[in-house]
């Protein structure tokens, strides 16, 4: 089999490099998906989280061979959706973004939660975001923003 074939933000894509390459590096360096942040390369911070077939995964802990025949969504693709607009407004309304480094991961973690559970409790939001570290420590505003997005974006998820 030649190349690694996958969909990236809705577009058929073929990667010719090593199957052992990190998805995180390939997304940033080959496909210019700079929303995907490199925080720790250990699966500890969640800044590099992407959706693979709708499931939240840390892209630093994924080798390219594993994504063959799968669908990847980053914020570059997700920002075209009405769901993103609802989350973006809620984050802005509550000033939930400080330095911004963790926010792409937070947004995709929120999408992963809301797509399974459109009306989460605060506890469920905190669990869903528990793998995403914000070193500005603005957790309460982020949690409230996700809860607000679920309320104001009712019907989108």
């Amino acid at each position, binding site marked *: 089999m030649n190349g690694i074939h996958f969909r990236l933000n809705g577009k058929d894509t073929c990667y010719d490099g090593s199957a052992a390459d990190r998805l995180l590096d390939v997304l940033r360096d080959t496909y210019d998906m700079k929303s995907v942040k490199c925080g720790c390369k250990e699966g500890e911070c969640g800044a590099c989280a992407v959706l693979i077939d709708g499931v939240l*995964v840390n892209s630093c802990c994924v080798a390219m061979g594993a994504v063959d*025949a799968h669908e990847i969504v980053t914020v570059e693709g997700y920002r075209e959706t009405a769901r993103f607009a609802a989350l973006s407004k809620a984050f802005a309304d509550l000033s939930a973004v400080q330095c911004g480094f963790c926010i792409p991961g937070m947004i995709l973690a929120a999408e992963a939660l809301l797509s399974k559970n459109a009306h989460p409790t605060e506890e469920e939001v905190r669990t869903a975001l*528990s*793998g995403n570290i914000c070193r500005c420590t603005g957790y309460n505003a982020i949690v409230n923003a996700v809860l607000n997005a679920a309320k104001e974006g009712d019907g989108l998820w």
Partner: protein
Amino acid sequence: MVNGYKPTTLQEAVEIKSRVSVTPYAGGTDLMVRNIPDAVYLFLNDIDELRQITQDDAYIRIGAAVTFTQALDSDLVPPLMKEAISRIAAPAIRNAGTFGGNLGNASDKADSVLAGFALDGRVRLVSAKGERVIPFDDFCVRRGVTNIADDELIAEILLPKEKCALPYYYKKIGGRSALAISRVAFAGAYEVHNGVIQAISATVIGEGKFTRYREVEATLIGKSVDEVSANADAYAERFIEKMTFTRGRVSAEYRKTVVTNLFKDYFASMK
């Protein structure tokens, strides 16, 4: 595919394993942290037969590439195992991390392996030449070392149904609530009839290896729960004197104290 093989069946996978030097890759959450230079991976993440949770008369059978999230959503996976894996890392890691990886990477802090030990878990190993089923006790040697042969792959984790149905005890102590590696963890399952212990397992994380002290467990069978609880220190000591605790982020003395307390709590919890 450069530096990788992506079989679609287990048969194909073991044939590749028998002729090429490859590193099995299921979820990647541990492998990619280690980031082995020039790695050639055998990708197992899309092999359907490794992604099933099934049951037969004797066992709950969890495929090696089943993720922790998948297991948490399953009605077949026993509560002790669910409690242990629900405390692994955070959602994005549980969405990718697998039972085969947790067992195969031979970490001495693997939460699913601890639960499997307490439930008398077995592992089904498959090669191009055949297969064998061995207890976790025989598979896990020590940190970093297992009894898997070069040409074998982990196919399934088998949990005996009669053990899965027993009352259980589980506690994990980490440095924080999410994304925490167990500093100490304790798992046990037991059976009590008319106040008398019929069966008991007790196993811990903190020794640098997984083990069961079955000869000590056997000394509790036939004792009344009241007697064991009333003399919890002495009964705990029977296990503790066999154990050797490791020093790491926390001291060996800390681990010993915590495990002693957990034994007492375990005995007190029995009904």
